[in-house]
């Protein structure tokens, strides 16, 4: 795992709570807002399960700590999106809170419903970008959520030990989290 220069993190009194919101304006029309909100609820929950930070959906977008939107091309932050595939999304280091997805992608919530060969799993990328929001850089461990590449029609949402150790070094461990259960899970995934 790796961090941004200076190891920035959200510096909040414990128990830390961060608010997030989806832009009401910058959306993708073919996805239901309720489904997208559910994706982000699950994505944030994965991180809050391992660190003593909780996430709540804000009522007002502009006042949220973490602001999520879908943008096309040059959207004013100096990092224009490039159309289908290429760069899929980006996020900013703590405590900026901006998370941007390329609206030109074919974002999928369920590959059984979305048949496009270029479909990208929204939940996988959301979980990855939240890692950046929390302060993690890219990992060189291919199985890690924080690995920078993702292939179309591929789902990778479960945090791996590399992700967990990285984020816990920044925020500490959630008292309810058991590393042994994650080790067992990874061991099973690796064929024992």
């Amino acid at each position, binding site marked *: *795992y*790796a*961090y*941004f*220069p*200076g*190891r920035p993190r959200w510096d909040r009194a414990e128990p830390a709570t961060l608010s997030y919101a989806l832009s009401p304006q910058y959306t993708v029309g073919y996805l239901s807002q309720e489904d997208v909100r559910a994706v982000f609820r699950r994505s944030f929950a994965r991180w809050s399960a391992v660190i003593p930070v909780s996430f709540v959906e804000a009522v007002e977008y502009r006042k949220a700590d973490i602001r999520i939107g879908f943008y096309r091309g040059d959207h004013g932050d100096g*990092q224009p*999106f*490039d*159309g*289908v*595939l*290429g*760069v*899929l*999304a*980006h*996020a900013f*280091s703590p405590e900026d809170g901006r998370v941007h997805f390329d609206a030109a992608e074919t974002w999928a919530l369920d590959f059984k419903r979305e048949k496009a*060969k*270029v479909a*990208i799993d929204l939940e996988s*990328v959301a979980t*990855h*970008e939240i890692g*950046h929001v929390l302060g993690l*850089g*890219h*990992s*060189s*461990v*291919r199985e890690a959520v924080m*690995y*920078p*590449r*993702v*292939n*179309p029609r591929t789902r990778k949402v479960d945090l791996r*030990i*590399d992700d967990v*150790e*990285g984020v816990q070094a920044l925020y500490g461990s959630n008292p309810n989290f058991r590393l042994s259960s994650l080790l067992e899970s990874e061991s099973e995934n690796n064929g024992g």
Partner: protein
Amino acid sequence: RTAPGTVTVVTVDARNSTWRDFSRFQDAGKGTQVDGMSELKRYFSRFGYLPAAVSDFTDVFDDDFESAVVAFQTNLGLDVTGELNAETISAVMSPRCGVGDTPVDGAQPLRR
């Protein structure tokens, strides 16, 4: 009209239209000059492997570019060869996150 019995095969290359062109650099080695390699250098610059300050990249596979390729291969867990082999070019052309790969501040990837 499509004639009866004709099968139309549509192949979708799951890669960005710009990055797809990078396949022509496969197997280019140090010291070679290939038209358009400056674009590939810009890609490496964008993700932190070459200095962003250099705007006029050449098309020559030079020492700095070899170091960038080595760093890229190391960061992405690829075989470290310093060459633009098939695995490396495939990794370059894959869809990815827009955050740079080398913002690390002394933190080394943890190996277990």
